[in-house]
């Protein structure tokens, strides 16, 4: 009985603490359409085919303005690109290197270990090219936004005409899900904005979901490894706790 009471007490304490965390987050909420993601949940894994399609969307559309500065080309291997494919993808970008023996900076094709080459040299240039708005780096964007992948998919497909009386400043666009509803990025994804090699129908929502999966992967390339290790660790701990509980019972039995 006493044991049960302690356990209930501890469980209640845990529940309350995480209740706090939940409330602290729930404060800023616009209802997002909930998508089904292969990578969600302890047993969910990144759908690599979908992530590769997402990379195509990123490369052909997003990468014109958005950087991916924390991600290396070699990370693409984790969604099923072969080493040769990754080398080829990297080599299509030029990075500045040097100084060489003559003291000159020079350009060379990127290699696997390079970070993704940024579309603009610096933030100021990025702003000039984008009506004063700065396209954020997308490396950890899925972790940096409430709602994660759902938010990304909702934002990319959330463009609509502004409601009557809502004035959208010049160079801004109305979006149902962006905080404040005016965003510097115009709608970029339309049906058939890309052509998928695997025959998947490229609707705007499909493209948005695909790129969200890709961004989820690059935000944490080790997430599948983490979950797989977690299952093993927890299984071990459950068995080990059982053994320890049996030992405890046996030892204490002598006292009663």
């Amino acid at each position, binding site marked *: 009985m*006493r*044991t049960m*009471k*302690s*356990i209930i*007490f*501890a469980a209640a*304490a*845990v529940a*309350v*603490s*995480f*209740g*706090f*965390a939940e*409330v*602290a*987050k729930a*404060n*800023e909420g616009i209802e997002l359409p909930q998508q089904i993601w292969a990578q969600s*949940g*302890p047993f969910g894994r990144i759908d690599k085919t979908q992530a590769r399609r997402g990379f195509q969307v990123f490369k052909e559309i997003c990468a014109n303005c958005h950087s991916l500065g*924390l*991600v290396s080309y070699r*990370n693409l291997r984790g969604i099923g690109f072969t080493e040769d494919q990754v080398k080829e993808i990297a080599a299509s970008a030029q990075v500045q290197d040097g100084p060489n023996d003559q003291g000159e900076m020079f350009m060379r094709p990127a290699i696997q270990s390079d970070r993704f080459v940024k579309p603009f040299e610096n933030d100021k240039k990025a702003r000039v090219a984008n009506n004063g708005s700065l396209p*954020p780096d997308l*490396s*950890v964007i899925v*972790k*940096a*936004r*409430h709602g994660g992948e759902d938010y990304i998919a909702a934002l990319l497909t959330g463009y609509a005409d502004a409601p009557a009386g809502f004035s959208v400043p010049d160079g801004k666009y109305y979006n149902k899900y962006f*905080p404040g509803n005016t965003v510097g990025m115009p709608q970029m994804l339309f049906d058939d904005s890309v052509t998928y090699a695997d025959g998947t129908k490229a609707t705007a929502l499909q493209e948005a979901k695909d790129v969200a999966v890709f961004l989820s992967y690059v935000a*944490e*390339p*080790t997430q599948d490894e*983490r*979950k797989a*290790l*977690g*299952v093993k*660790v*927890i299984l071990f*701990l*459950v068995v*080990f*706790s059982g053994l*320890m*509980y*049996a*030992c*405890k*019972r*046996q*030892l*204490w*039995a*002598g*006292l*009663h």
Partner: protein
Amino acid sequence: MALYPSKFKNPLINWIDSRLPIVTLMHHEYIEFQMPRNINYLWAFGAIGMLLLMLMIGTGIMLAMQYTPNTGLAFASVEHIMRDVNFGWLLRYMHANAGAFFFLAIYVHIFRGLYYGSYQKPREMIWILGVLLYLLMMATGFLGYVLPWGQMSFWAATVITNLFSAFPVVGDPIVTWLWGGFSVDNPTLNRFFALHYLLPFVLLGVVILHVAALHITGSNNPLGIDIKGPQDSVPFHPYVTIKDIFAFCVYLILFSVFLFFMPNYMGHPDNYIPANPLVTPAHIVPEWYFLPWYAILRAIPDKLGGTLAMFAAVLVLFVLPWLDTSKVKSMVFKPLTRFCFWLFVADCIILGFCGANNPEGIWVIASRLGTLYYFGYFLVLLPLLGKIEQPKPLPASISESILKGGGSVHAHGATAQPMEKA
């Protein structure tokens, strides 16, 4: 020249122990040490806290080998740990989540002490050192939260250090001194890193004192009565060690669920946005384990008053042993005080929710009433109830209470007895 008469037979251990009787000390404190036999699983949370402190120091040292305390590099160096360091993601998530689980364990530990009167004479020193440990933990936790240099890091540092500016005359110079400049910037990050590395070792030192003081008086127990003979106690090893190990495992399962499946659950998404002094986040909220204090801070509609109330709310704990006038430790025997205690627990939870919500409407009123009850519990209820309430009669001894009068089983012989039930 006399050597210590070590009783260990192994020649190497004997040689060491007779010159430095550390083996005897450990044997005495962690093997023979007598624990009340009626302690429940709430007594495991001190040891769980110790385990988590070790985990945090271990992971923290390894993280420090890869982290760069520079405003231009800190955010990227944390991502470097996540992406390029072997199992860096594991180290970092362990460190971040163990912080929250450390606080959780310590909160259970503190409330256990409050419920069973573990702060009362003769354990005042243990309690005072414990409150000091809690203060050190808060400081360390806050400093560590700043290091990833995300938006929440930067703005938490700004908000918290700015509290000191509420003090008249000395306030602003103190803030400039804390920052090492005129805003939260590179010198601030550098010193926060240095202090975040230093304080856990101070914490460890005070933990040793906390345990040393505990081993003078011995542990309290759910009945709050003293050990009266060997029938009331069990040796620390193996009885308490096995119980603690089991409790560790269960706690680690819970920890692992968060660590592996929802490692960012307790964090704030804004902390994955690099710090930007020009953009203030819509809501600046501390980590959940600071929310009740944050509610008290905001309950007083005056910056200085709020700051003082928040500090007073922690400092009042130092004098708790003298505020509680009751001669009986455990609230098991004090129904009225017990009722007030559970109200106090509820109050702390409500304050937590107040801290998480924007200070408007009902939350302002709730946080004011909550703050009032917080101080009322310590400054009015405990001093008064100790005088007024007539406790229920205490059992004659621990063993009598457990064995209902038949207490003659000798604990020391227990391992030799045949097993009665598995």
